[in-house]
């Protein structure tokens, strides 16, 4: 079972991370590089020197940097894939309602969307994906809030998906709401050098690419899990 889960997660995570990484380099990276020009002071927001040059595109191509981004994208989605595939296998083991031998590709996509909501959309509701250079609260506080939000939201979504009583649904809603009622750590002073137009564009692009990668992860995890199931059993 361990081998099944790990191999399925490796295939699915590499594929989702590779496609997500390419989408990231194409759609997110240009916005990030543009923001870094403001972070480093080469461009200034409301500055006198280069305020006219708002559509500057940084065309410097850094192979090492881009390959590292692809590699880490694959590693991150393999990590998420391991957790999601294990949860899928757990669900199959404990599901006596429907055909328990496989999760269909369509169900896989829903698993992927649920994963996206749990690890990117819900934490992003309080801590939007940060472009380099924006003002933010202390790293440790944000990491703790991020982790707590991911765990609470994932558990909440699980209860909505597989719970059977109104009390469980109520508990799920409380779990999903709680991190946002408590609130994410916020910076003391808002004085980031990056224009809000770039920051919001970055956040939207990061969430969109994340959703695409997660849909692929869910689809591939269900597919490879079913494949390995028919191979070994």
């Amino acid at each position, binding site marked *: 079972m361990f081998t099944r889960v790990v191999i399925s997660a490796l295939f699915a995570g590499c594929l989702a991370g590779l496609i997500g990484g390419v989408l990231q380099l194409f759609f997110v990276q240009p916005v990030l590089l543009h923001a870094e020009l403001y972070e480093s002071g080469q461009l200034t927001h409301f500055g006198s020197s280069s305020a006219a040059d708002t559509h500057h595109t940084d065309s410097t191509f850094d192979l090492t940097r881009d390959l590292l981004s692809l590699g*880490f994208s694959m590693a991150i989605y393999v*990590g998420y894939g391991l957790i999601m595939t294990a949860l899928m296998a757990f669900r199959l083991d404990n599901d006596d309602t429907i055909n328990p031998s496989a999760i269909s590709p369509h169900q896989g996509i829903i698993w992927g969307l649920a994963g996206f909501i749990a690890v990117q959309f819900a934490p992003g509701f309080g801590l939007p994906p940060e472009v380099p250079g924006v003002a933010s609260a202390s790293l440790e506080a944000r990491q703790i809030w991020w982790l707590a939000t991911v765990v609470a939201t994932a558990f909440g979504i699980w209860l909505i998906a597989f719970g059977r009583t109104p009390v469980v649904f109520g508990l799920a809603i409380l779990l999903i709401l709680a991190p946002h009622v408590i609130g994410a750590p916020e910076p003391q002073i808002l004085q980031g050098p990056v224009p809000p137009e770039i920051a919001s564009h970055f956040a939207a692009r990061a969430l969109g690419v994340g959703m695409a990668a997660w849909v692929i992860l869910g689809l591939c995890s269900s597919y490879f899990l079913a494949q390995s199931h028919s191979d070994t059993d």
Partner: protein
Amino acid sequence: MTNHTISRSYSRNRLLPLIMAIMLGVSVLAVAGHAQSPTLHGAAHDTRHATGFPCH
């Protein structure tokens, strides 16, 4: 029915491998997404920003 019962009790013993797979996933994410060593941070920087991890 007997087979079904056997397979379900067997499935209880399959929890440990799943927990191990989840722990492996968490470790990979801790290194790729959260660890703050300067080299690791520099290498993973763009992807951490793009996937919504708190980066720096």
